[in-house]
């Protein structure tokens, strides 16, 4: 049975319309995210711009909004970022390399795999309880910066491991074959043939999960991190606070000025996250250029 040209034309037109409608749906989906983000940023800017002044970055928290700042929280967050990122990278990528390249496939590795995926889905507050038990009490670290960093490391590890595994698995088998066929050892192969191709994907996972951790509050509340810290942590065993905790604290206070301080704190946190993401993208591009 042959279709007439007119029928064919009508059919094509219908397909085209479908295409257009889908395009609109996808555009709408994208717009929702962007619009919400814009509203959030504008709202926060209106509230927070007032307190976005140099004193915010030099003063410690205070009972008086006019003298309050977030220097201890900002420094606390930066310390945490500087230690958390390399620590979780090394442990997470190490575990991923082991699981993909070295571990024998079998019931044991399947079980580990299920455990890691499950851990990735556990609410962050549970990690707080774990950190409280292990680091604060058992290892006697108290509510110190180190206990907070270790707790956050536990929190981000499952996601980093899973995403790094995916990145490593995505490297074509032919690259490994080429390396092994030249007489390279497993580590040489991983180091020179697998990781250079996997690093961009690994970094994406590390950045996303560390960003997440820098914005986390709940686990730190559970391990008893202080919210009123009128000093800079002198060492890793000192008490500490971080930006989200400071924001959380300010939001809980009744005076309107503290709400505005919280908004300016959120701006600082957002800027920190953006700076971090840009740094990571620069590193990633540097690696990708070599390929």
């Amino acid at each position, binding site marked *: 049975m042959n279709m007439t040209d007119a029928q064919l034309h009508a059919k094509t037109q219908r397909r085209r319309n479908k295409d257009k409608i889908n395009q609109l749906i996808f555009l709408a989906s994208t717009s929702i995210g962007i619009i919400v983000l814009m509203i959030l940023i504008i709202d926060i800017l209106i509230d927070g711009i007032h307190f976005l002044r140099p004193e915010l970055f030099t003063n410690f928290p205070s009972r008086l909004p006019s003298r309050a700042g977030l220097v201890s929280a900002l420094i606390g967050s930066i310390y945490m970022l500087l230690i958390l990122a390399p620590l979780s990278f090394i442990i997470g990528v190490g575990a991923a390399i082991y699981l993909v390249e070295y571990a*024998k*496939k079998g019931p044991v590795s399947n079980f580990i795999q299920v455990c890691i995926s499950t851990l990735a889905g556990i609410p962050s507050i549970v990690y707080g309880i774990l950190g409280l038990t292990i680091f604060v009490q058992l290892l006697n670290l108290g509510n110190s910066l180190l206990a907070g960093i270790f707790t956050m490391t536990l929190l981000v590890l499952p996601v980093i491991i899973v995403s790094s595994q995916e990145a490593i698995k995505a490297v*074509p088998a*032919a*690259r490994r*074959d*080429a*390396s*092994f*066929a*030249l*007489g*390279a*050892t497993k580590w*040489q192969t991983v180091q*020179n*043939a697998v990781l*250079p*191709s996997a690093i961009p994907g690994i970094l994406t996972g590390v950045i996303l999960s560390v960003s997440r951790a820098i914005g986390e509050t709940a686990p730190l509340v559970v391990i008893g991190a202080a919210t009123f810290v009128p000093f800079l942590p002198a060492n890793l065993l000192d008490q500490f606070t971080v930006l989200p905790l400071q924001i959380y604290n300010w939001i809980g206070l009744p005076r309107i000025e503290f709400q505005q301080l919280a908004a300016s704190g959120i701006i600082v946190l957002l800027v920190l996250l953006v700076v971090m993401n840009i740094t990571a993208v620069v590193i990633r591009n540097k690696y990708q250029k*070599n*390929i």
Partner: protein
Amino acid sequence: MSATTSNALIQIKDVDLFYTQFHALKKVNVDIAQNSVMAFIGPSGCGKSTLLRTINRMNDRIEGCRVEGLVSIAGNDIYSKDVSVEMLRKKVGMVFQQPNPFPKSIYDNIAYGPRAHGITKKSILDEIVEESLRNAVLWDEVKDYLKRSAFGLSGGQQQRLCIARALAVNPDILLMDESTAALDPISTIKVEELVRELKNKYTIVMVTHNMQQAARVADQTAFFLNGEIIEVNDTNVIFSNPRDSRTEDYISGRFG
């Protein structure tokens, strides 16, 4: 079977190979003489590549793969416990079906093997890179672009780069697993010419689906069917006067 056993560099004796339950090679026997080209032909899934990969133990990487029988190179059992797989693969290079350069520069691709074996001095690496590229007849085409990505080369150039990369660790044997299957006819001819050239220095074992290629390049040819070697002989005998009717059916295109 070749009568000149004493001359054989590679000896494969009563080799059985299993992938878990699947019996992929059945009591395979073949000798490969030094400085010769041996071609493995036969239909898909008959065990040619599997046997090729036992010669540099690439099958070790497949879980559930078990080899029985003797595979020896220059009289040494390569499956004995004290053999280092890394040293074996340095002596037995391999070129794959698809060109598989690393996402690195041409120079770094060639230097990859020597570096893995501990050579770090730039002057020595420079020398190896030039010599390997000359041996693979690629030097004149790429000598001004050594720092450029290997991915910028054409498919045929990439495959010759992979040959050069294999030669850079100074092997005795070169295994070629359908190494021209992904190439255009002109590039294929170039690789074949190269193989004829290389056999002066190396012993070459190639798997091919292209029977004309076996006829053009190989000194000896082995015909595989369902995990067995049906016939192995001088290439001209295999193609002009095969002893087994199945060999004749295959080379005359009646199946496969």
